């Protein structure tokens, strides 16, 4: 029969665990992945890291701008976020009708995403990390060889958008425990600006060679994974202060070796 003191001690253990669960992150082991459409594809190593199980939501971001007024819609400087920043909200500090508090936040710039994550002690995932996590489906770490997986992504990419971003409630966890990497919103990555795809195939092939050397790793060959190509092309079209109605983000962090 546990004494009351023991029960209190147990409760004390339960509470932090609960708090941790709310800030759930999926842990990914070190590994490698094949960037899917790169010329001369070589597996790229990825160190162990953690990624938020879910994208950052409207409610999360509202809390952030409440505490950090310079990131409120009417106060942010244009260099850090364009004029459509948080335009789906009703005001600086209100979401308004039709906006699900637990839907992924969108219309946020790369700078805003970074500032949010910094306040959480996290960072944006690198392209390699995001792509590595996004190779998984519900049951496999790497589903990219399965045409059905790619077909599912393309189906989403082809769907007309519009309307408010829905809550991800009900989204399935992938192999690592992350949800909604696909199927809801596109997500910012830290190094989106290393994607040098022009996105315009004629531009790629006809570019002035005098000015464009070292194209080795920069072009696209594998047309099978059109979905991955679209992600790279999309990223290469972005600038840090852009905000987009279907572009959100989630956090990542290094996994310290002693916590493995």
């Amino acid at each position, binding site marked *: 029969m546990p004494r009351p003191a023991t029960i209190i001690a147990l409760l004390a253990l339960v509470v932090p665990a609960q708090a941790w669960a709310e800030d759930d992150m999926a842990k990914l082991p070190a590994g490698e992945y094949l960037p899917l*459409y790169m010329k*001369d594809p070589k597996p790229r190593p990825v160190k162990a890291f953690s990624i938020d199980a879910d994208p950052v939501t409207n409610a999360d971001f509202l809390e952030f701008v409440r505490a950090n007024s310079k990131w409120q819609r009417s106060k942010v*400087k*244009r*260099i*850090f976020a*364009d*004029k*459509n920043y948080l335009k789906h909200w009703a005001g600086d500090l209100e979401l308004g009708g039709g906006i699900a508090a637990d839907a992924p936040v969108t219309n946020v710039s*790369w*700078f805003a995403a970074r500032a949010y994550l910094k306040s959480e002690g996290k960072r944006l995932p690198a392209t390699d990390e995001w792509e590595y996590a996004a190779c998984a489906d519900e049951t496999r770490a790497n589903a990219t060889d399965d045409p059905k997986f790619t077909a599912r992504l393309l189906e989403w*990419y082809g*769907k007309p*958008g*519009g309307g408010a971003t829905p809550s991800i409630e009900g989204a399935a966890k992938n192999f690592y425990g992350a949800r909604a990497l696909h199927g809801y919103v596109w997500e910012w990555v*830290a*190094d989106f*600006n*290393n*994607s*040098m795809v*022009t*996105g*315009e*195939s*004629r*531009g*790629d*092939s006809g*570019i002035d060679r005098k*000015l*464009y*050397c*070292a*194209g*080795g*790793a*920069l*072009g*696209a*060959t*594998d*047309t099978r994974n*059109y979905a991955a*190509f*679209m992600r790279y*092309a*999309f990223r*290469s*079209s*972005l*600038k*840090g*202060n*852009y*905000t*987009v*109605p*279907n*572009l959100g983000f989630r956090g990542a962090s290094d996994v310290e070796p002693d916590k493995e």
Partner: protein
Amino acid sequence: MKSLPTLSLCTAFLLASCGEDKLAPAPSPETKPPAAEPVSDPAPEDVHPTLPAGSAAEEGSLHDLESEWQDQNAKAGSLADHLGGKIQVVSMGYSTCKFACPALIADMRRIRDGIDKTALGEKVGFVFISIDPDTDTPARLKEFEKESDFDPALWTLLRSDADSVLELAVVLGMKYRKTTVDDFAHSNIITIVAPDGAVLHQQTGINADPVKTLATIKAQFTRG
């Protein structure tokens, strides 16, 4: 369907580095944008690829970045500390680059040669910012200053941590990627920065005619 207006802009980025040029075949006849308005339309009045023109106070400027930078004399400070008070001609590259960066620096010198000597140093400075913080320590930048015969009264060579470099590159709309152990592919952009940190103009590509760049700088002189 709404097209990706900015994709065509990207062709304006002239990428260069020092490796072999192997261009991949075209991936598909037309790149379709993702569904649902993927990218906000750049305002038609945008005068340069990245930043809105306007007052630094409202629009923000390089002086709003909180990162810390060291120069070739290991003096540390913010971008406002290093760049403020003068019109600055700014580029990003790395000191060990053999091809594009020397060309970029040659372009900066061409801009220098178009400016009245009395204004140089006092009203106009030149800044080279490293994208290779591992190699380009303050000591290495000091060597680079000597190797390149940079006039210390005119040139500031800066380095910071990788994350701050990334942030500044994003602000300036510059793309770069480490391609091998000691090589980077990067876009070549020369940015004209006002004394208050506002971005006034950007010149892209190498061996570009600096006529607009010089006009931008000279317009600042008359502004006082």
